């Protein structure tokens, strides 16, 4: 990590987005992660995605668990409120926060230990409920902060830096998310910003549960030969299904790819996902087919990336609970307290 503070001044010619913000307005504190950590690339991709989507930084709430990945919300969107919660418990805190104010964008940041081990239950249940969120798992297959133990996403047979072999079957968060009814499921690689940024943008536009499993090599403890989460391994085995482009609502959409190679999906918020197909017979709107395809590829050791599944008309938890349109945290006595006259009637019912 560096300890040299970033200069507060910046070049006057930095590009600005529609809100007049530059990249710098989406940055956070200096990262304390190791130099070259994949997680920092993901933070950079998040900054880029929010900048490109013209989001007001303060309308995003960042919530994380415990671990290297969960530290990162301090390193981007410095004008957003952050909540670095307990180990494996980001989903419940995010769910509660979302219930309190449905108008903000909820960015859940977690890691493979946080999501696939201690927090597997909460991972599953927030997806089942359809919480409107972007759930990013920064997946490196290893416990970094405690120095190199296998995590539950480590592939069977993969080697640890200390030389041990993982005998346990891996948990594939993408497959799990599909089974659980997740309405936006993607996998990417921290080393592929061009793929990752649009996937994040698509997830933010998605009005339901969006899960992004981002393979993010740990340069200290899981970047060696024999690891299946190293930069080299993922680059060699990365099988991208598609490249997406997110076109915000109200923009004109033009299809400039050859017919058959591009698919356009209109999301509920009016935005479009333009998918350039890299794999001709992969249909990201067919959940069952996606699941079968993933199983086949992972058996061959391939890392399937891209937008793997999307339901453009998702339902979220607020729809299930029929909550009012106004954020619950803005309701006061007038809306919430039935008052003394109603209480007199209540009393009468108990006599």
């Amino acid at each position, binding site marked *: 990590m560096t300890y040299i503070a970033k200069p507060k001044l910046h070049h006057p010619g930095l590009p600005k987005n529609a809100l007049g913000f530059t990249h710098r307005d989406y940055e956070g504190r200096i990262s304390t992660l190791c130099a070259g950590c994949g997680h920092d690339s993901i933070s950079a991709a998040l900054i880029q995605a929010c900048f490109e989507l013209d989001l007001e930084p303060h309308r995003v709430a960042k919530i994380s668990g415990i671990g290297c990945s969960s530290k990162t919300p301090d390193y981007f969107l410095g004008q957003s409120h952050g909540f670095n919660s307990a180990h494996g*418990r980001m989903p419940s805190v995010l769910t509660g926060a979302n219930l309190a104010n449905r*108008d903000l964008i909820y960015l859940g940041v977690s890691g493979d230990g946080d999501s696939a081990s201690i927090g597997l239950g909460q991972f599953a249940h927030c997806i089942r409920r359809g919480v409107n969120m972007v759930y990013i798992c920064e997946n490196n297959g290893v416990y970094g902060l405690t120095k190199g133990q296998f995590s539950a996403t480590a592939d069977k047979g993969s080697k640890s830096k200390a030389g041990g072999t993982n005998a346990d079957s891996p948990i594939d968060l993408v497959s799990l998310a599909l089974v659980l009814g997740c309405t936006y499921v993607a996998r990417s690689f921290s080393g592929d910003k061009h793929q990752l940024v649009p996937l994040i943008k698509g997830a933010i536009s998605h009005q339901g549960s969006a899960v992004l499993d981002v393979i993010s090599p740990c340069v200290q403890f899981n970047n060696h030969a024999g690891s299946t989460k190293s930069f080299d391994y993922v680059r060699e085995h990365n099988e991208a299904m598609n490249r997406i482009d997110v076109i915000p609502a109200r923009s004109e959409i033009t299809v400039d790819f050859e017919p058959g190679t591009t698919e356009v999906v209109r999301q509920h918020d009016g935005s479009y996902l333009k998918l350039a197909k890299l794999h001709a017979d992969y249909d990201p709107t067919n959940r069952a087919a996606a699941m079968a395809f993933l199983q086949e590829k992972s058996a061959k050791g391939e890392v399937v990336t891209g937008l793997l599944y999307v339901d453009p008309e998702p339902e979220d938890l607020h729809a299930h609970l029929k909550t009012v349109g106004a954020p619950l945290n803005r309701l006061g006595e007038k809306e919430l307290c039935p008052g003394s006259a109603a209480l007199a009637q209540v009393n009468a019912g108990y006599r």
Partner: protein
Amino acid sequence: MKPLAATNDFVVKFANVNGSGSASANELFARSVLRMGVAVATRNIFPSNIQGLPTWYEVRISGEGWLGRRGGVDLVVPLNPQTWDRDIAEVEPGGYMLYDSTKPLTGQKLRSDITVLGVPFTELSNSMAGTIPRERQLLKNIVYVGALAALLGLDLKVIDALIEKQFKGKTKLVTLNGTALRLGYDYVEKNLKGACGLKVTHSDKVGERIFIAGNDAAGLGAVYGGATVCAWYPITPSTSLAEAFSAHCKRFRVDPATGENKFAIVQAEDEIAAIGMVLGAGWNGTRSFTATSGPGISLMQEFFGFAYYAEIPAVIFDIQRGGPSTGMPTRTQQSDILLAAYASHGDTKHILLFPEDPRESFEFAAQSFDLAERLQTPIFVMMDLDIGMNDWLCEPLSWDDSRTYDRGKLITAEELEAGKAFARYLDVDGDAIPYRTLPGTHPTKGAYFTRGSSHNAYAVYSESGKDYTDVMQRLLRKLETAKSLVPAPVMRAAKEKSRHGVIYFGSTSAAMDEAFASLAAQGVHLDGLRVRAFPFADALSDFVHGHDQVFVIEQNRDAQLLKLIVNECGLDPARFISILHYDGTPITARFIHGAIAERLSVTRKEAAE
């Protein structure tokens, strides 16, 4: 043995089989007595089971208005062969047994010192034409209510009115129940007239009071207190609180125009997720709560420490049951006091409220949300199964319409815009309570990072020892501030000057009130202090210093409140005498009276020697 004779002062106990539909008939009986203006105290004693195991319903009829459990049974209605022997054994000498005489008694234990009254409940209900077997099973229960009505002199018109209210608009059911009631009533009038010396007569002691369970009242209190997010996981005996909140919300919080809800209730996957949701919602500015019991409190520990340290409002209703482990899920105890007071690893202290009955459960429920937001910390409302799941006679609930919610120190966008300084964990006002902002408040000001790791006054991660101790010291001072905000103890002065005091709390109050009176009648005068909150008011130490010795009455094995008092107030343990009742049944006045009288006589003997 002379048969017991008493008017408006006796105990009836129903011994039923779980799932037989007896609960509503038993409640009908209790409410009939209430409607005649006589106070009742009822206790459901039920198993951790849905169908088949024994369950009991005890009705204490008290013209004097005592609401604690009395102990002993004067009239038993044994409808469960499994428990027949022990049900009969429990009856006071001279008492009564009213049983189903459809089949002759063969081999069951009987007692010569009680009056046996037989009414063929089953035969009578089976005689009702046009009914199906399940209906007849339920109507059999009404037959025994009818028989009791005749034996005890209950007013049939009162029972008819209650049946009418219960089955409003369902004419067939009103008729069927009315017929069953009269079958039992007429049988007794014809065959057993004058056989029972226990009587209920009209009185005027109930007045405006209501009959309500604590969980129901607390759920309503959460509605009045402005709670909008409830995250919970089913656990006896707290489940009915979340369900009551849901029912009251459906009545009061649904927008009539759109059908949309001004509340969100999530049944979480476990207690850890439930408290996580409560914290997320509290952090984001809604009033949120969970309802649970001991095992849930154990599971939630990590988040309690988080909320304490990161200063997040939350309300937790702990409906205590018998522990440890799974313990006695359907029995009452006050045994989570220390667990809640010092919940989580590291140095923590939490605010506890101790309501004495459903009415106070309503009030404390509403107040707890003000306290949580004012103090930015978890508030534990420490109820128990006895208060939570039994109907209690209490004063009507009341609400002052001029009351507003205390949202605590929340900085608005306007204040930030106007240049008000903001540092999340800085003690600006000297009361140790910092200011907070909600997510999404202002584009460039007021954002901060919430974390359970050590932080300085500006919410920045810090491993500096001074930064850490500054925050920890301020959190201690915040608890001092809390002392003046939480409900004050209630003092009860003896008629004559007393060297002895009694400290008690929660559901013990009803039995304690009665014990004060019965002890005073024997010349034992005691001052009382009812604890209503932790941290303890300074008045508690003064009370202890003002007496030679102080009894502390609790429903747990380890004298948890006493230990908390000794620990937190720095008092000499020798000043206290602990009285403990923890078999899972609600404490009784008889028990308290006996225990105090015994200790005092020992003390006097020792003094004389």
